[in-house]
């Protein structure tokens, strides 16, 4: 395909022990010989670690938190367009999408392309509605209940066997082995992400994930399945490998078709000891391991950038089974002045 020369803005540059997908998205773009564009990091904090990785970004800018509202975000994106010539935006955090979905025309009028789901698609895969979606489309999913009142947890044993997963509405899950643990988890998740809280039947097994892009008509533009080989205490993948798993890919195709999903997504699936598959979550963005897709020969972030720019990508090449990643945590040595431009001016032309 033709070399991509546009300017891509990427969010989610926090690269802590629970990293955002921004740095892996950028690394995937940079790794491709078909990418000759510029990359601008959009960060919420001047100390987001991805801002300080050498040779990662061509520029960086602070943007307001989603809680500041759509107008504040769009004003900042218009500034990014004027200052850095941003052509394409790849948002990578769940909480960013409500402000962007259904406003693609506004962004396009600014000159910024995105490839995103509609708000209706975004909502139908939410943790609160996943069970209903899957039940209606014959996708295997653990039973769940949506709770707004912690008192309901004292009778949850009548409907679920412990342990259960207590999940926040956007992020986070706690495995609870008793009603008291479940109530504590309810308050912890609610304090962080608000209500409702989702209680999900716990399924033991191997954790599998699929990173993909849906075409908005029920098809998959590309998809790469991965098995986590190492987990952090938070359950985040620290190492993983691409696998060949036909039933997993069939499940992914069914779920994407059910939603007619448009844009990047990640499916989290458990394969139980009997070989059954259970869809735990659908995340509405690339995962933090998405650079593995590039390593496996199917560069999903680059495909997303092209689609957002209005290009056609056709059928992506098959991914390579056995491509693995191992995450590393490193200290980046910088001078304190590296924080200056972003802290004082909210932007800088070149990463340190």
């Amino acid at each position, binding site marked *: 395909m033709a070399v991509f020369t546009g300017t891509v803005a990427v969010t989610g540059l926090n690269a802590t022990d629970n990293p955002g997908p921004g740095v892996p998205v950028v690394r995937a773009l940079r790794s491709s010989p078909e990418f000759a564009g510029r990359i601008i990091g959009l960060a919420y904090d001047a100390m987001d670690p991805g801002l300080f990785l050498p040779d990662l970004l061509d520029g960086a800018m602070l943007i307001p938190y989603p809680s500041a509202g759509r107008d504040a975000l769009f004003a900042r994106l218009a500034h990014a367009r004027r200052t850095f010539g941003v052509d394409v935006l790849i948002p990578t955090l769940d909480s960013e999408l409500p402000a962007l979905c259904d406003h693609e025309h506004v962004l396009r009028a600014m000159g910024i392309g995105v490839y995103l789901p509609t708000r209706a698609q975004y909502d139908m895969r939410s943790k609160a509605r996943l069970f209903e979606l899957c039940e209606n489309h014959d996708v295997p999913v653990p039973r769940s209940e949506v709770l707004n009142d912690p008192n309901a947890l004292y009778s949850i044993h009548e409907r679920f066997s412990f342990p259960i997963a207590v999940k926040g509405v956007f992020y986070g899950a706690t495995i609870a082995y008793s009603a008291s643990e479940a109530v504590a988890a309810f308050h912890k998740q609610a304090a962080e992400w608000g209500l409702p809280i989702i209680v999900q039947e716990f399924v033991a097994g*191997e954790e599998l994930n699929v990173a993909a892009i849906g075409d908005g008509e029920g098809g998959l533009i590309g998809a790469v399945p*991965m098995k986590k*080989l190492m987990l952090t205490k938070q359950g985040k993948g620290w190492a*993983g*490998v691409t696998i*060949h798993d036909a039933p997993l890919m069939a499940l992914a195709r069914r779920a994407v078709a059910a939603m007619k999903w448009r844009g990047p997504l990640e499916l989290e699936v458990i394969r139980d000891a009997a070989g059954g598959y259970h869809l735990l979550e659908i995340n509405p963005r690339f995962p933090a391991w998405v650079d593995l897709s590039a390593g496996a020969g199917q560069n999903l972030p680059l495909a997303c950038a092209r689609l957002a720019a209005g290009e056609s990508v056709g059928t992506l090449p098959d991914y390579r*089974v056995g491509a693995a990643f191992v995450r590393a945590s490193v200290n980046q040595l910088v001078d304190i002045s590296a924080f200056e431009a972003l802290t004082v001016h909210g932007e800088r032309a070149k990463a340190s």
Partner: protein
Amino acid sequence: MTAGTDRLSQLAISPSGFIFDPRSGSTFTVNEPARFILEAIRDGLGLDAIVKTLNDHFAAGAADLRRDTLEFARRLRDSGLLPTDFELV
């Protein structure tokens, strides 16, 4: 390939004994006799043929080789690489 050994046929087996299962993402290491047995089962050899060939390559008694081969086949069943009803005969 013989019936029931299709999972073994999917394995990526390195000469070093490092094995990658592309379906589960799991990796294993086996020693040389175990790799030999695994490849023999995958290729459809029966128990007598495996023991005879092992006997030509490794210095061990036929009874030991027979027992070890059956034990290894059981471990392959336990790890899901052979069907639970697979019998090496």
